[in-house]
């Protein structure tokens, strides 16, 4: 039997959830015995080369590229998992959701302490190559269907490991109190 295929992506997140995945330490060797990796920043594969079984998504959607990547994952992955606060709720990036996009851009490029004297022409980044900001930061499930949610900021490495091995082996996920308490 061929090994299940795993893909991962970080959208509007901080890569902290991916770092937490690395916190499984030496079990990463066990992991590569259990799964093959496809598109993922961990192996730097940029494009899907085949259908996958499990997709892990870190971060919500703050621009159209995030939406594009997320939809691509939905198309290629049988099971899609929202990993961490940002994917599930929008997280820290969603703090801008109460403000108009123009306010955020002006603060960043015109009025911010590091830009206000450096950008006399008041240039906004508008190259066609750049992604366009969305009106707000969307959690993943407001864009595509998500199958599972792993909470945490970041989710504990034990939770990620437990969830992955449960998914791969088809076991029920065990959730001891220690891995889902956040206080």
């Amino acid at each position, binding site marked *: 039997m061929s090994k299940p295929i795993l893909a991962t992506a970080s959208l509007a997140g901080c890569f902290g959830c991916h770092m937490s995945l690395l916190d499984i330490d030496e079990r990463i060797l066990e992991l590569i015995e259990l799964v093959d990796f496809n598109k993922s920043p961990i192996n730097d594969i940029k494009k899907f080369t085949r259908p996958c079984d499990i997709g892990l998504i870190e971060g919500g959607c703050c*621009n*159209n590229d995030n*939406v*594009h990547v997320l939809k691509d994952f939905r198309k290629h992955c049988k099971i899609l998992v929202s990993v961490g606060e940002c994917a599930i709720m929008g997280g820290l990036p969603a703090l801008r959701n109460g403000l*108009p*996009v*123009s306010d955020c*851009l002006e603060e960043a490029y015109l009025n911010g302490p590091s830009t206000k004297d450096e950008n006399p022409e008041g240039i*906004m*980044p*508008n190259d*066609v190559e750049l992604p*366009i*900001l*969305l*009106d*707000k930061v*969307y959690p993943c*499930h*407001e*864009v*595509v*269907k998500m199958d599972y949610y792993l909470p945490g900021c970041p989710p504990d490495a034990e939770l990620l490991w437990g969830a992955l091995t449960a998914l791969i082996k088809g076991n029920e996920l065990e959730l001891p109190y220690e891995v889902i308490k956040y206080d």
Partner: protein
Amino acid sequence: MNDPVINIIEKYNKDYTRLMDILIDVQDEAGCVNEDAVHKIADAIGISVVDVEQTLSFYHFFSSEPRGKYTVYLNNSAVAIMMGRDMIAGAFEQEAGCSFNSVTGDGLIGLFDTACIGMNDQEPAAIINNEIFPRLTTKKVRQIVKGMREGRPVEELRGNDFGDGANSHELVRSLVRNNIKRKGPVLEDGYKVGSVIREHLTNMSPREVIKTIKKSNIRGRGGAGFPTGMKWDFCRRAEGDQKYIFCNADEGEPGTFKDRVILTEAPGLIIEGMVIAAYAVGASEGLLYVRHEYKYLVKYLNKVMDEMRAGNLLGKNIAGIDGFDFDVRIQLGAGAYVCGEESALIESAEGKRGEPRDRPPFPVQKGYLEKPTVVNNVETLCLAVKILKNGAAWFRDQGTEDSTGTKILSVSGDCREAGVYEVTWGFTVNDVLKTVDAEQVQAVQVGGPSGALIGPDEFDRVLCYSDLSTGGSIMIFDENRDLLKDVVLNFMEFFIEESCGSCSTCRILPVLMKQKMEKILEGHGTEQDIKDIKEWARPLEHSRCGLGHTAANPILTSIKNLRNLYERKVKKDVEFDTGFDLHKAIREGSDAVGRIPIAH
């Protein structure tokens, strides 16, 4: 000292339980209750500033900012919109030069939305500086705004085309029409107020009164249908040196206006009912809680009570019954649907936010100022008078097994004869439609938004407590109406607006359900969305009061009874659709940097 705010506070003896009256008077006097006034009130009546602010911010007709020399409150309920409210709103905005929920730059005119004002049979209608302007047309709006610009008093803007009956009374002088289409025991002509007190009450013991009321099997006419005799008996048995009789005239259920007609045409009967209840339970004070929308009736109601005092029907030793002292005062609301719930109404009368209380203890045990209190609907009290007059058997012989007697219906919407009908319980929906001359009816909302929306398959259902229970609101929608968008969504917005916010269930779930509903209306709905809505409604049962319990009813009953409306809108070929619209989502970001909004 000639500070109007201080004068008002002193008028109410610096009594913190009269905070509602103080705020109403200050709002009327100054056009708002500003920070300065809040501090003065808090200091003078001895409560904290936040206690004043929380009451102030709870009610729709209070504001901390000025709302204009002329303040227009235009009804935005479903039937108002059907009768052309949006055109009237547009005319107001165009003529006044400001949009709704704002005030013109010169502070002259403020335009505000408001929930049903009890004029469904004469919409579109607005309240301007406490005067009612029913049956508005764009032409009238132009005249009104022109008059405002000329600084005319609101009575002049209103004109003199007064309505029938007591609407033309010198203390009312309103354009409102009664539209009484069928009379019964409450609205019948020829009854002399006080005759039951004089001829029957004087010969009965309080126990006999309760026994008669119990025998008649009358149940509360506000909608919940609690047996009135039992309520009185509980209060009579409750321990307390002081007991209160409250009349609930806070008729806020969209689509009902029968209490307004009773207040106009039979106010004496209401007070007489309160006197009888007071005699039965041993109460010495009464309170008639009138919704702010009916403020135009207050002077008249006070005069009616003065006449009753002069006739020894209120006051000391009423009708010569030795030691039976009872008097009534009017308490105005200030715009809050939830205050129709009896414990919220009591909170409001005590000067607080209209948040329902935890029960038990029930109001009959611990109500107003912690004393045993009976809260009865206007119509219930009127019927109690006629039960004593004609006997319990007379009442029980009318209606059905579990719903005895008569019920006043407020019928509005798509029919030729909107108005008030006093019928016996057991009337079917079909009977109603025939009586009011309605054709090509698509659906009927029975009992207001908290009741049920039913389709033609169920028009043979019976109006009674065990089938279609109703506080009297009947709204009719013909085949041209978009039920989901114009009716169900409107009702959901109403519940969201009127939630007191105390229970998280009622504060959050109706918003989520409305979003689902909008998603379905935009064509992104799936079968799963309908299932989700039904599932999400269940936790609402754990809310503290009836508003929370029934907030999902517009959606739930329309899914149950008119499911095809939903089936037509949901996608059949997809299991899941988040409704995410990329093109809409990138518009703002593209505009902000000057890019063409193209994304794939």
